[in-house]
């Protein structure tokens, strides 16, 4: 855990908001990638995920109304991993990927978010902050359940799902 | 001051002379001082140099024409050659072109004159040049030679003394005194020789004249035009442009970067220009060849740049120290794809200033690259010229200072020029690209985008109003000489001589080589029945260009010769006479 200072309610809200916004942006980027590569099913799926994250972000923004959230620069968040915890790993995308793969990525993201907020409960600055962190833990656990259920609809595809009989095309 | 001789001396409008010597004899320095002294005395002149391949100690010849009217061409004949020594001097024979009326003054202790000199029929007299110099403490043979030259052409001693004081100011009074004494010794020794020609006297100029080389003039033209960034790689014979511009640019608030090669040079100036700063590079044929790919980038991304090509003998390494006009094909057609751009060429040393300044203005106005085809003859010759006029041609780029939302860098406009945002302008961000693009600048392979952007890049050049500067059209008559670049000087002189013979000949010297001007050209040719195309190439590049762009009649005559020797008026006059 890279956090060492005690996290206040405002800082908690700022981080939670950033997590959802980052995740939203990440899913939106993946939706674009899929759209450009003509994988319509995944473009829609990632689009939906982006929408959902956007709703989460909006909820947190509402909750934060009135509070003065601190500016935290991107590197100052000191996320535990290589980026914000709910961001799915962009390097495992594939232009032929299936919903199973996407939702597996999403599930991992939500699980990381659970772990992150669990860690935040330990360094909350006061009881309010701790309670807030615990709320976020619960919410993320809910998300994990939802994604699991969604994932269950898509069993792992057979081998050969990434076979493309066309050769790569030169561009420049 | 006239020579102490009883023979009749004719007064001439122009005299051609040369001083040659080797191994540090200082012939070039003497030649430069002679030009300056003559200029002070009110004469015009042209000073070129010819050297061997050695970097130091080689044979060298200072070649001058001094006249009462501006000079833009090599002389038909050398009237006077002063040979400090004869080491490897046959090298200069072709360039000097001595004849039976020429006089050669050679050092008494030198070897026999080379066979080719003797065979020219010139009168050869001996003077103890080296001995006279040795007799003076610190005296040098080139100052003796200078004295002989001055006496021969009737240049006042005062003008030379003044020049010695100026040129040797930082070498100390000892050097100045020694040089003046050596000069005097040369003048006195010359009194024993019969000279048949003197320069007609002239009054000192009413308005200050300038002494400038074509390369310096190009540099000055660039700065006057607004250039404030140069990146370049040294190459003969363009390096002097960079040498003059480097400190000048800094004084003017700009900068010069010596690049690692020409590939870097052209890209650096594209980068600087993209940043909003008018930019230029100077090179010669081999360097321009390297730059062609990126010139295409400037065309495609619509970034203005100016490339001065001081042409030299080609192909490949060719003859780096001599002139030729054989980069025309490359300048016009060297880019891959359809890549219209501007090509201009100065017609004289003085015109290097105007044409380069104009090129900056054109490039900036049309957001396109402009190639300036100068050449070694113009670039390295020093000329005495009238003070150049101050011109209004400066960089005036269409800049979008307040871009609206949805700004499109390559929008299709009526004149084909779309306002450009400059980095630092909020809301104007775009990515310039060599890839074909749509009006916004996003890469596109669509047929409609390609054809409309190609039209844009072409129409903006052909639709521009170049005014009367596209060519120098002089005179009228049923005969015409069509030429360009440094061939213009001798052509003009030949036409003047033809007029004295009663032949009415028109001169059409193109300054704008691309885009073509069919209407202007047709108007210039009205009334012309026979024409002579003059160019310094082997393969007739200019004639082919004229035929392709303007459809010349099949009986157009062609005087076509590659370098290293420049045209002389007499050659062109003979060709004109054959037209009749």
């Amino acid at each position, binding site marked *: 855990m890279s956090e060492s200072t005690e996290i206040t309610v405002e800082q908690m809200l700022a981080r939670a908001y950033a997590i959802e916004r980052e995740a939203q942006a990440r899913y939106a980027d993946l939706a674009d990638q899929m759209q450009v590569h003509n994988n319509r099913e995944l473009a829609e799926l990632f689009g939906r995920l982006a929408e959902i994250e956007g709703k989460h972000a909006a909820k947190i923004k509402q909750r934060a109304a009135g509070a003065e959230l601190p500016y935290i620069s991107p590197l100052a968040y000191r996320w535990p991993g290589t980026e914000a915890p709910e961001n799915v790993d962009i390097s495992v995308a594939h232009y032929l990927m299936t919903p199973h793969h996407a939702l597996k990525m999403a599930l991992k993201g939500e699980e990381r978010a659970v772990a992150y907020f669990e860690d935040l409960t330990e360094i909350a600055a006061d009881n309010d902050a701790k309670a807030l962190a615990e709320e976020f833990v619960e919410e993320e656990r809910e998300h994990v359940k939802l994604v699991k259920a969604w994932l269950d609809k898509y069993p792992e595809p057979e081998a050969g799902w990434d076979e493309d009989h066309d050769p790569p095309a030169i561009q420049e | 001051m006239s020579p102490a001789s009883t023979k009749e001396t004719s007064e001439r409008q122009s005299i051609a002379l040369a001083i040659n010597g080797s191994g540090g004899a200082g012939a070039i320095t003497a030649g430069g001082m002679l030009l300056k002294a003559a200029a002070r005395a009110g004469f015009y002149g042209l000073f070129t140099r010819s050297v061997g391949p050695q970097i130091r100690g080689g044979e060298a010849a200072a070649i001058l024409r001094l006249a009462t009217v501006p000079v833009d061409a090599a002389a038909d004949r050398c009237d006077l050659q002063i040979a400090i020594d004869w080491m490897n001097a046959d090298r200069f024979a072709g360039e000097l072109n001595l004849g039976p009326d020429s006089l050669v003054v050679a050092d008494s202790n030198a070897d026999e004159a080379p066979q080719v000199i003797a065979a020219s029929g010139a009168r050869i007299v001996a003077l103890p040049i080296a001995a006279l110099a040795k007799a003076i403490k610190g005296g040098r043979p080139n100052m003796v030679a200078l004295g002989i030259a001055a006496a021969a052409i009737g240049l006042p001693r005062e003008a030379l003394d003044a020049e010695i004081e100026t040129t040797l100011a930082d070498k100390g009074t000892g050097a100045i005194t020694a040089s003046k004494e050596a000069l005097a010794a040369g003048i006195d020794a010359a009194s024993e020789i019969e000279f048949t020609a003197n320069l007609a006297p002239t009054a000192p100029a009413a308005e200050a004249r300038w002494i400038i080389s074509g390369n*310096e003039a190009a540099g000055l033209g660039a700065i006057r035009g607004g250039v404030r960034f140069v990146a370049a790689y040294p190459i003969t014979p363009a390096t002097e442009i960079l040498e003059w511009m480097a400190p000048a640019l800094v004084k003017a608030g*700009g900068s010069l970067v010596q690049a690692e090669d020409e590939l870097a040079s052209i890209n650096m100036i*594209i980068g600087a220009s993209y940043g909003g700063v008018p930019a230029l590079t100077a090179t010669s044929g081999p360097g321009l060849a390297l730059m062609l790919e990126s010139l295409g*980038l400037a065309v495609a991304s619509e970034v203005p740049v100016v490339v001065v090509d001081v042409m030299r003998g080609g192909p490949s390494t060719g003859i780096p120290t001599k002139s030729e006009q054989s980069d025309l094909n490359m300048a016009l057609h060297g880019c891959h794809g359809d890549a219209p751009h501007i090509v201009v060429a100065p017609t004289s040393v003085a015109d290097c200033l105007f044409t380069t300044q104009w090129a900056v203005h054109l490039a900036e106005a049309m957001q396109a690259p402009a190639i300036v085809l100068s050449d070694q003859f113009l670039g390295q010759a020093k000329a005495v010229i009238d003070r150049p006029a101050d011109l209004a041609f400066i960089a005036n780029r269409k800049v979008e200072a307040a871009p609206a939302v949805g700004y499109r860098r390559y929008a299709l406009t009526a004149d084909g020029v779309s306002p450009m945002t400059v980095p630092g302008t909020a809301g104007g961000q775009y990515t*310039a690209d060599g890839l074909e693009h749509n009006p916004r600048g996003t890469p596109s392979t669509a047929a409609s985008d390609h054809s409309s952007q190609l039209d844009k890049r072409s129409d903006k050049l052909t639709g521009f109003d170049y005014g009367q500067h596209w060519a120098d059209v002089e005179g009228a008559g049923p005969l015409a000489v069509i030429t360009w670049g440094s061939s213009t000087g001798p052509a003009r002189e030949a036409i003047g001589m033809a007029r004295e013979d009663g032949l009415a000949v028109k001169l059409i010297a193109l300054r704008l080589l691309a885009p073509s001007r069919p209407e202007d050209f047709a108007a210039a040719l009205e009334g012309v029945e026979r024409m002579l195309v003059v160019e310094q190439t082997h393969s007739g590049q200019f004639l082919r260009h004229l035929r392709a762009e303007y459809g010349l009649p099949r009986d157009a005559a062609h005087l076509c010769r590659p370098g290293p020797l420049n045209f002389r008026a007499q050659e062109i006059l003979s060709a004109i006479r054959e037209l009749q």
Partner: protein
Amino acid sequence: MTMDAIPVSEALTSRDYKSDIKPVWCPGCGDYSVLGSITTALAELQLQPENVAVVSGIGCSSRIPAYANCYGFHGVHGRSLALGTGLKVARPDLTVLVASGDGDGFSIGGNHFLHACRRNIDLTYIVMDNRVYGMTKGQPSPTTEPDWAESALAPGGTGLRPFHPLVIALASGASFVARAFSGDLLGTAALIAEAIRHEGFSFVEILSPCVTFRPDEREWRNQVHPASVEPTDDPARAVRRIMTDDGFNTGVLFSGERSAYSAATPDGPPVDAGYFDGDFEV
């Protein structure tokens, strides 16, 4: 600048540095992460997008300028450093990032690389090294392993020793040299931010896997590790370390003090063109 002083509503986020053009890179390409790292670094520094220019050559990584909301130039193959140098010298007020790949930067662009390091112009050079020519369908690049045999142009592998860009950069005088891995988005962003802050030529080599032609590079995520020692300011030590490391050390490997290139300035206000008449008057 104090980050606390920025009102949250006005702060630029990494999204503000992305344009609306959708990248065409293969999904899974490391360059997506690099774009994220660059935009994150810019957000960290709160630079105004219009004061940043991203200049590139040709190749997959060179597509990046269009995907950023800054001024950009997508130039010709191998000349991105020259473009960037001209722009920075003429416009020292801009932040100039030069983006390239291992082919564009170390093959055709090799000469300009040496001289950019020499010149120490204050710009940041980011090379996305995937050890292959992706755009032209998978030929070996100067950094490709000698036994990589998947290219028709070099059956059995090139057998050539790979180019060592970090060492060459140091030998040529680069004053800031770092290695990064695209998979560590924030770590790479931090390196890029430090590189931009560094006054002088900063070179960041980012190992960025090519998912299409080098699927074996998926292993890189298990091989990279932070450098175990602090960056040094002794170029000889840095070179020795880099030449003996496993090639997967990430972090700032060298940071030295060398005054950045600065164009000569006039003593006094700039003169106008008429000043030079005196050079030529008789």
